[in-house]
């Protein structure tokens, strides 16, 4: 099966700082792939490169068979930015209906997307009056509403209560079961276990690209947080001298 995203030797500089140091990985279609790493590790930059809004310094990013950012991809890719990017002076429903219309979807599709993120009861509320968690779910509804083939979600579950978080992950897997590909970032390691595949990045370098079980088997520990810690230590011991010096 063709991969939804193929990244080769991706280098990104922001200002004078190198943010991504030659990342190569692939994201299989119809899966939920977790992009994990601490804050500032380059997750957002990697996601921006995938949706094609990031100027890249080298390497290539191929999305659904086309170079990232190609015009036809704009109908096929949905993007949730880390900060909720919805209009605070519109209601939840109006926001969802606008983004639905941009993707050629109907108002009923928008209303369904709003209900699916658990905001059915707040649909007529202005986004500016919502709590932080609700606001980011409103933003999520706008990313899902176009029913894109690839959905790139930058920390979609931050600030959500545990029940809602479980609901959202169930929703992501339901989408993946229908063939949709999801790339979901998180800095919370306990979410790693919910993913089909994991990409762990740290300081702009890929530390692991495996399934959760693969990571556990390779490190011999059950707890993924502990497993990641071991992977990081091994990679540093193996020659990540620059990484070690930055500690």
């Amino acid at each position, binding site marked *: 099966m063709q991969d939804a995203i193929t990244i080769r030797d991706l280098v990104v500089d922001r200002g004078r700082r190198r943010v991504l140091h030659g990342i190569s990985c692939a994201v299989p279609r119809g899966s939920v792939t977790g992009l994990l790493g601490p804050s500032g590790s380059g997750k957002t930059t990697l996601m921006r490169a995938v949706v094609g809004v990031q*100027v890249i310094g080298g390497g290539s990013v191929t999305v659904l068979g086309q170079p990232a*950012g190609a015009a036809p991809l704009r109908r096929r890719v949905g*993007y949730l*930015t880390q900060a*909720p*990017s919805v*209009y605070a002076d519109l209601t939840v429903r109006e926001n969802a209906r*606008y983004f639905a219309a941009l993707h050629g979807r109907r108002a009923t599709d928008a209303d369904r997307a709003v209900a699916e993120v658990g905001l059915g009861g707040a649909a007529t509320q202005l986004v500016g009056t919502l709590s932080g968690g609700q606001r980011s779910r409103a933003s999520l509804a*706008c990313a899902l509403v176009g029913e894109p083939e690839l959905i790139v979600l930058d920390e979609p579950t931050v600030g959500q209560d545990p029940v809602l978080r479980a609901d959202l992950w169930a929703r992501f897997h339901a989408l993946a079961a229908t063939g949709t590909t999801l790339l979901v970032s998180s800095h919370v390691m306990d979410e790693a276990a919910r993913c089909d595949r994991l990409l762990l990045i740290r300081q702009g370098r890929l530390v692991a690209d495996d399934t959760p079980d693969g990571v556990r088997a390779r490190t011999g520990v059950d707890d993924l947080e502990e497993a990641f810690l071991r992977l990081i230590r091994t990679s540093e011991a193996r020659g990540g001298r620059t990484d070690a010096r930055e500690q």
Partner: protein
Amino acid sequence: MNPRILAVTTGRILRQLRHDRRTVALLVVVPTALLTLVHFMYVDRPTPPGQPSFFDRVALVMLGFFPFIIMFLVTSIAMLRERTTGTLERLLTTPLGKLDLLFGYGIAFGLAGAAQAAIASTAAYGLFDLETAGSAWLVVLIAAVSAVLAVALGLLCSAFARTEFQAVQFMPVVVLPQLLLCGLFVPRGEMAGWLQAVSDVLPLSYAVEALQEVGAHAEPTGTMWRDVAIVAGAAVMALVLAAATLRRRSG
């Protein structure tokens, strides 16, 4: 450009405005309040024989100023908000074209400016007996075209502002020189040659000249239509330049 996306984007911008009731109230009330002020400033001044009264001369041009100033400010802030809240970045990952967004703003705030001009004109003609030889509709048309020009300039300038503080400072930079040199304070023909040359390249000068043509002639004149075309052309040029400042990819 995609007509359907342009239409929904225009609708979205107008809906945002509608939710902001205080802004709508200010758009409606402020011009009339200021016209009242101007009316009482000139009410006791004798009118020189054979000339339009001071109020007629000033109020007519002010009807073009209001939408120009206000729509410039409103647009600069609205577009800056799109940039800072991330909605712009998100929009640029959707099928929306850059021109859909820019013309959406042009149409939405152009309509708002036209409505503002219509209300202010109603007050000027109805309450303060503004007299123009030509039709009031032409006054509203010219004011609406000035509003579109202001929106286009606001969209362009917002690209050069990173904060709201910077954005509002473009008002004195971009708008004030056009007000000063438009021919209201000193007739353009009486200015020093170099000032006249500057005035000639500032688009608002043509909007003011068009308004003065309506003031003096019963029928729309060729000069008036030419001026309206120049203002509209400047607006389209600014919109296209603004499109060039919108980058889908950033660093």
